[in-house]
């Protein structure tokens, strides 16, 4: 089994995507918690911002992040020829 440059590129694009999505995860979780007291002064539609993020906003973003990862990676598999045929 020999990896080609194309394979290496696939893997590095996977790593980049993983890093970007992980950064989003980190910001909506930990950065928002860190500044929760300050962010709670912003009130939108009755919801203090940090409270809303913890209760719902972050959750919605998690779902979207995972959805996007699945979609993007499944496309990358095809683009780089590492797509699994149906078994």
């Amino acid at each position, binding site marked *: 089994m020999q990896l080609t440059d194309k394979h290496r590129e696939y893997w590095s694009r996977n790593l980049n995507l993983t890093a970007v999505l992980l950064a989003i995860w980190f910001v909506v979780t930990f950065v928002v918690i*860190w500044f929760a007291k300050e962010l709670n002064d912003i009130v939108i539609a009755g919801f203090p911002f940090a409270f809303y993020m913890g209760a719902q906003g972050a959750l919605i973003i998690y779902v979207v992040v995972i959805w996007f990862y699945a979609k993007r990676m499944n496309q990358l598999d095809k683009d780089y020829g590492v797509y699994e045929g149906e078994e």
Partner: protein
Amino acid sequence: MAATTSNAAFFNQLKKYYSFYTGGFVAFVIILAILEQMGLPPKWIGYIFLFATIALYAGIGIMSKTADVAEYYVAGRRVPALFNGMATGADWMSAASFIGMAGTLYAAGYDGLAFVMGWTGGYVLVALFLAPYLRKFGQFTIPDFLGARYGGHLPRTIGVLAAIICSFVYVVAQIYGVGLITSRFTGLEFGIGVYAGLLGILVCSFLGGMRAVTWTQVAQYIILIVAYMIPVVWLSVSITGNPIPQISYGQALQDVTAKEKELNDPTTTLGAAELTVRAIHKEKAAEWGDKLKALDAAVAAGNGAAFWAEQKAKAEAKLAEAKAAVPLDEKAVKAAQKAVDDFPKNIDKLKAKWKGSEKGAKDKSGNVPGHATAFSGKGAEKKLMKEAKEKGVEPTPEEIAKAKAEDVKASNDKRNNFIALVLCLMVGTASLPHILMRYYTTPSVREARQSVFWSLFFIFLLYFTAPALAVLAKYVVYHDLVGSSFASLPAWVANWQAVDDTLMKIVDMNKDGLIQLAEITIGGDLIVLATPEIAGLPYVISGLVAAGGLAAALSTADGLLLTIANALSHDVYYKMIDPNASTVRRLTISKMLLLVVAVVAAYTASLKPGDILFLVGAAFSLAASAFFPALVMGVFWKRANYLGAVIGMIAGLAVCMYYMFITYDFFGGVDANQWFAIKPIAAGVFGLPAGFLGVIIGSLLSPAPAKEIQELVDHVRYPSLEGDIETRAA
């Protein structure tokens, strides 16, 4: 191509089955509702729900019985992403999520959101770091991966041990939950409820292993989500007129916040009344404080045992007195009897109980914390100003600065603990073997990725509803209870007070005939259990909620039991003791172990071990410290090797356990030992870096892994490679 059509056909068939099933279930609930109108007593509705759902699960379990190894361990690897998502959702959401979550949020407000974020955000880690790679590897258990990636028996053995420790504490908590629900809704005794629930668990998993568990879990998910949603939507409509609680509760939250301000303002009528009750709580807290001082003094003098015996004798004397009273007050006798029955078993437990009472009284003697307020300080500055004003003196700038610093520290400690807990819960989610195992069951890597999305989506439906339910329930309490008269208590309050006074208790402490917030005690589980009644729904919906809670507990227990039994039968017996064992023998051993583990877990649960919530939290920290570094580095760092994995896993587990040991009072630890004021439940925050460091240092100290191992890493990284090696187990 033939396989494509067969997979698609299978998917369509499943869709048909489960749509039919959902329709049938709804019809069943409607028929029961009609029967209730015609006079079927509530107790019968409870029984019918309990037995009908367990019979249903048993039916699916029997239909899915199998003698094939791949079917038994990984459901034949043909569970479509959507259905694997539902099964994972049911596997994941335990009795604690279903019944306890909204109550935690009700009590803790923002600070309780650590659980909501932690138990959902972990799936991002599952998706990015684990699920697709484990699926490509494609064997049966998590220790399988450790064994193949790092070689030798040691990494596998540590993996097995860690998997058993985390899953066992977790499964005991689930069976405990099953016992509680069964006993509450049928009136059976708790111990019998535990074993009845055990039967319900075993009928699913015993005959068909993962295959049966998967298809029952899908059925259980449908019941639990329907049961959770109906009452909340109804409540939302009746309060705000909007059927989408996740949107409408913003309005209710504003109202609740305004009410909190009013209750904390002594110049308003409500605020002034609250103040009188708080003063009573303050006195009570002082009384408990004095009692605790006496207890400590006795212990210091070496008379702990005598002191305990004296207190116990007092409780018994009270019971005798109540029994002899004329006229006989049955309520008082019952209460005194309970006090004697539940009397703490030793002096340490007595101290813990008194401490709890002191804290309860103290909490109620202060202002109402804001629901959406994050990390409130301890109010030292306010207290200082108030006391100074009463004495008529001006506090010095130093005093003010000191009080301010205290507040800031308390607030920062809360924030740090929140962050640590969220991290432990998230990484723990991505390390618990019973969840990771589910991603072995999809037909392909592609579907494994999609399946994580569906998993979180289905979990999300419940978790983003819980904060809304908590606020809506608070709205009801603030509006319908606070300020109203004791003479006109709503029916649901009286009902629940009669059922269990740890769930709902209102006492007119200041004897003004009106209800104050500080006079209400609400147990966390009440919020979900009582929502149908609060919303004015018929009893059949209460039965439905109980069935939902039962489904949540049973499904999680099933997944956990299977994990433990598989770790023992597959990893220990087949991989280490007898690799030549026949298929029949492997499955027989597996089923026997399942039975043994189930009985041991049920027995442990029937002893009602205390601190069960702590143990569940501890399972996450332990799993995070033991598994996450070795699993993730195994995929993302080719250089990671045998020594690194062994050192990393042992270091992670050891640091995590050591920290719990020195800080958690159950093991004799004390708060003073805490590092950075982090609570023992978040011990993983120290175990996790220790694990990563261990993997890195151990790997760098020893030679790079063999070429075959490096090829294995490439193999799991690419869904398909030319000339690829094969690691899948048949």
